[in-house]
């Protein structure tokens, strides 16, 4: 499988996965936007990021990013509760949503490329921090409109023999990390 073919599979897989998770677990419609590829993995972030590693014949990372206000509303819909702040329950809910979205994507991918493993999620919450993924590989960015907010799903996968050592994540800023 080429990287172009994998990118297409990721785009279709994320669309199917995020629609399934949001309608089943949140009971709300979603609007999945047009995916795009970026080659400069440096991002200013302000809010919640949930990261999950994938490994197997292809290796990489999936990330789910949103602002604190959307994180509270997503957790509220997921757990049928109300949250005034981003606390442990909110971070745990966002981690589990990422686990479902990336986990379902992994299931779709492994039907084509063979068994893949998934790490447990790590969540980061903070203001004005910068994330930089080592290496210069392209990431697929998929914007999602849900609960009147913007959720961003980012995936990078490389063939295992090219991907080793290229997925170091550097984070600069003030944040809370949970994993």
């Amino acid at each position, binding site marked *: 499988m080429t990287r172009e073919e994998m990118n297409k599979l990721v785009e279709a897989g994320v669309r199917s996965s995020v629609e*399934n*998770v949001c309608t*089943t*677990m949140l009971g709300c419609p979603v609007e999945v936007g047009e995916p795009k590829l970026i080659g400069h993995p440096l991002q200013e972030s302000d809010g919640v990021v949930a990261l999950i590693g994938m490994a197997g014949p292809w290796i990489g990372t999936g990330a789910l990013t949103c602002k604190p206000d959307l994180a509270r509303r997503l*957790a509220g819909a*997921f*757990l*049928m509760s109300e949250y005034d702040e981003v606390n*442990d*329950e909110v971070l*745990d*809910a966002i*981690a*589990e949503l990422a*686990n*479902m979205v990336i*986990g*379902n994507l*992994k*299931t779709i991918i*492994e039907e084509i490329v063979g*068994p*893949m493993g*998934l790490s*447990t999620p790590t969540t980061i919450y903070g203001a004005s921090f910068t994330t930089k993924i080592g290496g210069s590989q392209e990431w697929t960015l998929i914007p999602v409109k849900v609960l009147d907010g913007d959720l961003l799903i980012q995936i990078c996968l490389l063939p295992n023999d090219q991907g080793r050592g290229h997925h170091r994540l550097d984070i600069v800023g003030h944040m809370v990390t949970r994993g």
Partner: protein
Amino acid sequence: MPLDVLVVDDSAAIRKILQRVLAQTELPLGTILEAGDGLEAIERLKANNVGLVLSDINMPNMDGIELLTQMRANPMWKSIPVVMITTEGSQQKVLEAVDLGAAGYVRKPFTADQIKEKLVGLV
């Protein structure tokens, strides 16, 4: 006598959702106990009279496959039904759990009806 149910998942969010879903099933269930991984689940099994286990597969410290293996090797616990609730859709993991005697599995995301359907024949 209602069965006590043990919910095993490293996600507190999923444990909370399953507590709510189990309460909605109107099945004759007793106390809902929780554990964050397989090791905690073993402690709950030792201290309580558990009649049904719902377990994730991917967990730190001890995963759901190892928990199932230990339960099947223990005469006290080997007949307790275990339903796997997981994002793991791979045939490899599912077949491994079924080979070890899992009573069934439900993929995340799940609906309350899917959980109830799996449990109806077990309680």
